[in-house]
């Protein structure tokens, strides 16, 4: 089985979010980048398939050379090869368009992406990629088993879950549940050394025109100070008469 894991390179979850002076671009100074958490759960599941059922695992990212340390980290925890499509990721549509030829040419059976990336929260790359490649698609995937050509996937729905059956080739939008938090791997010395010599292919694809463009960003207005109360009675009174939520 050939698996491709799509990796988004995102600011660490503790990052303070700031923008440049004219509010048109994210200010990257001092920001640490990581593998998007949803993608990391997917990558870890892919490595499980590799070890338990035999699979090759490639990782791909659409971005500039600054994303390579994130791809090397994926190699260090066990991916076999990495691909970087050398393109600025503008909107989700252009990212899906850039990944589609990689998926088709690589003849992957399974593509694992994250349900959404925690920076722009688009949540559209896996579904768009599935549609562009003609693959089956399961979103918010919290469980995946593969038996031959058949996949059994569990999808989180509002208020519960559903079990789905489908055939490969398949794309999933994954999240926690594919593996548990405690299954996530930290690169060890040996992995880091090996990652240096694993292939990292840089490809150029024709870039599609973006369908959307962000004009400016805004930070939330500063919050008023909290109103401290002494007891439940006062709280109920304020929630009823002032906030009018009960």
């Amino acid at each position: 089985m050939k698996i491709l894991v799509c990796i988004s390179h995102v600011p660490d979850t503790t990052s303070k979010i700031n923008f440049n002076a004219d509010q048109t671009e994210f200010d990257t100074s001092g920001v640490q980048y990581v593998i998007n958490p949803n993608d990391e759960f997917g990558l870890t599941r892919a490595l499980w398939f590799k070890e338990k059922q035999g699979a090759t695992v490639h990782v791909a990212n659409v971005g500039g050379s600054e994303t390579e340390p994130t791809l090397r980290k994926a190699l260090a925890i066990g991916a076999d090869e990495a691909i970087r499509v050398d393109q600025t990721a503008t909107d989700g549509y252009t990212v899906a368009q850039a990944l589609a030829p990689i998926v088709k040419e690589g003849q992957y059976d399974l593509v694992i992406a994250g349900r959404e990336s925690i920076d722009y929260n688009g949540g559209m790359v896996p579904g768009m990629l599935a549609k562009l490649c003609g693959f089956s698609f399961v979103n918010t995937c919290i469980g995946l088993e593969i038996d031959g050509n058949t996949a059994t996937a569990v999808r989180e729905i509002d208020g519960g879950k559903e079990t789905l059956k489908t055939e490969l080739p398949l794309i999933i939008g994954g999240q926690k549940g594919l593996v548990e938090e405690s299954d996530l791997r930290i690169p060890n010395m040996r992995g880091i050394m090996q990652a240096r010599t694993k292939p990292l292919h840089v490809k150029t694809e024709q870039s599609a025109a973006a369908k959307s463009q962000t004009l400016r960003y805004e930070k939330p207005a500063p919050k008023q100070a909290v109103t401290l109360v002494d007891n439940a009675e006062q709280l109920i009174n304020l929630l009823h008469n002032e906030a009018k939520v009960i």
Partner: protein
Amino acid sequence: MPILVYAESDQGIYKKSTQELISFGRAMADQMNTEVIAAVTQDASGAELGQYGAHKVLQLEHQALSDFKAENVAEALSQAARAVQASVIIVSSSANSKYMAPLLAVDLEAGYVPNIVGLPTSYTPLTVPHNVFTNKASAHTALNSDISVLGLSKNAYGVHHYETSAEITTHNPELSASTVEVTSTDKASNKVMIADAEVVVSAGRGLKGPENWGMIEELAEVMGAATACSKPVSDLGWRPHSEHVGQTGKPVAANLYIAIGISGAIQHLAGINSSKVKVVINTDPEAPFFKAADYGIVGDAFEVVPDLIQKLKEFQAQNA
């Protein structure tokens, strides 16, 4: 060119999020001098949708649409959008809509922006405000495609009432067989879902262990609320993953969010700060949650929560 709204129903009921979607579509339609058409896929009559602003209801009829399959719904909406020549399609932030919308967008070669938090700030080009960085910031994004798919955040606009009586017509899409088949569904029937809840009662590691969740469930029941938890609580297996809220869990956009024994880490706050009113109950006055909350009680959850339950019951009895 009209606006098409995907009006989801759940067992014949149009939830508040669907009503809100239609009112949002109506406000846009009024600005654009056009009509809003509610597309319904299930056997629920759409007649009532006029009161939320729909001018017309389009019943999409096909056997394959009797339960939700993302591919089929996307195909049906795409054909409907072309039939009525819609320039905007509005969908919700439900798990189903977020599953389906990217497929629809590719089918219609449409730009897609999710997590929209307000009406467009411009109509030429169509420019919408939406949350990014998991609610740590917002963006104004312009769409340059002929057709746009807009995903509205829950509780971002509100339900508005109209005296429109919507005329119902049917459309029969031609659908291919879905490549994904649902074999079983496991859905708690009597629990309030985080996605729909007006009030969410959430608890963290300060509760010390899973055996102490009885009072959290009771508080939620008294308030008609959904229960939620912080990430470590679900990682420890004290509560199911489906209750994990925050940047890497579910987003919460409730009217009222009550955080009990939760410190207020940046990742937790990111996911819940779209909620309108936030309450914190924590023993530690220095807990970061107090900086994000509207109301707070510095106190021990094991004393405050039982008292709150008691006083709420009395309050409800008086106001009944």
